[in-house]
């Protein structure tokens, strides 16, 4: 080792662990599970990654509703594959979260008891087939905008999970847009169905990108840890700018009378978001909060005997194997 390197190492040791940690993140180094990390980093990551996992799992429910009612086999296999992906994404994320020293059981407990949140968009009902199109196009579109920057986040297991999620997610959005396109090129009634879905999902999709920057409490810290690379308002603007031209191609009207292209800023100006509605849904008073949790908790409880039986079987097989080994 050179003299300069030696000096460097010495100076590093004298700095506090936390400073070294922050410096590693500034240098774009990844943090791995067994590395030292501040308690707040661990807690914040458990909160965000588990919320993300819960959202994938609860997100299956509104779409599961339509699997048996899909209008063709082609649509059915696509929707089935999308919902299966979401289960997979939930599992990648739960595993990443568990590397921070929290158990899967604790995580499920937090979801089932209402202690942990999930994306509030899944508390809206899916009342027509067009909702499958709107969810893929808008909800997955907003999710992708949120998720792509996370592929570079500082916590290694989370970043790796996000890379896999993002790779798989783009089919979700495309299949949604294709559903919208078919409806828009169909009969007048079908086109109205697509418009109605856009009317209902547009604002909740904008809310999905989180509270405005001036009230978002976690933004500053999350930016520092690269848990966030862009602010909520920046992400929302990006979503609107890329989605409005897509609505134009469909021939649909975005339900915002104040929406208009601003030549000066190079962005769309848009109307006031009803944050009161957002907070009501977050607090549990959305149209489907209760239904979603009942479905989720019910499925978990009804599956208990299956999980227990699998475990009992595994133990029995293990004992059998050991006895056979002894007999030889």
């Amino acid at each position, binding site marked *: *080792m050179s003299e300069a*390197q030696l000096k460097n190492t010495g100076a590093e040791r004298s700095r506090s662990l936390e400073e070294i940690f922050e410096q590693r993140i500034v240098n774009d180094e990844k943090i*791995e599970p*067994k*590395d*030292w990390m501040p308690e707040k980093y661990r807690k914040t990551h458990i909160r965000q990654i588990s919320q993300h996992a819960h959202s994938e799992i609860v997100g299956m429910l509104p779409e599961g509703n339509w699997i048996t009612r899909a209008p063709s086999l082609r649509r059915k296999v696509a929707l089935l*594959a999308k919902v*299966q*992906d979401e289960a*997979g994404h939930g*599992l*990648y994320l739960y*595993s*990443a979260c*568990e590397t921070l020293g929290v*158990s*899967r*059981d604790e995580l499920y407990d937090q979801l089932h008891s209402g202690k942990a949140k999930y994306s509030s968009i899944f508390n809206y009902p899916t009342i027509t087939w067009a909702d499958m199109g709107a969810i893929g196009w808008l909800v997955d579109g907003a999710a992708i905008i949120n998720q792509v920057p996370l592929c570079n986040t500082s916590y290694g297991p989370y970043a*790796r*999970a996000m890379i896999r999620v993002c790779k*798989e997610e783009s089919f979700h959005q495309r299949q949604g847009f294709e559903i919208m396109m078919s409806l828009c090129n169909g009969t007048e009634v079908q086109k109205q169905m697509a418009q109605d879905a856009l009317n209902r999902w547009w604002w909740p999709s904008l809310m999905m990108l989180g509270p405005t920057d001036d009230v978002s409490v976690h933004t500053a810290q999350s930016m520092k840890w690269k848990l966030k690379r862009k602010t909520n308002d920046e992400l929302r603007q990006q979503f609107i700018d890329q989605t409005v031209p897509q609505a134009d191609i469909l021939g649909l009207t975005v339900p915002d009378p104040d929406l208009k292209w601003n030549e000066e800023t190079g962005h769309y100006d848009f109307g006031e978001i009803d944050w009161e509605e957002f907070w009501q849904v977050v607090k549990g008073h959305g149209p489907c909060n209760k239904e979603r949790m009942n479905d989720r908790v019910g499925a978990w409880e009804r599956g*208990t005997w299956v*999980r*227990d039986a*699998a*475990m009992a*079987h*595994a133990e029995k*097989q*293990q004992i059998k194997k050991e006895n056979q080994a002894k007999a030889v």
Partner: protein
Amino acid sequence: MEKNWPLWEIFVRSKNGLEHRHFGSLHAADAEMALENARDVYTRRSEGVSIWVVESKNITASNPENNGEMFEPAQDKIYRHPTFYTLPDEIKHM
């Protein structure tokens, strides 16, 4: 009182000629179920031709806090690298 399914680490060979690489983890009651679940969770888009599953508790990992003792001894042994040896420019194929 239910017993939780243990955690398994999943390694996947993406194609012959490449090594198995750590893909992630999952919970399963036994090795057979871990293999089946790994197929569904990690190879939905033909990402693999072979899967290994290892129960996580069977993995012994080095501790990053001991990285100094563990890995620094290699740092001052630059003579293990070819660039340590100076040769005249006109020497080729070496």
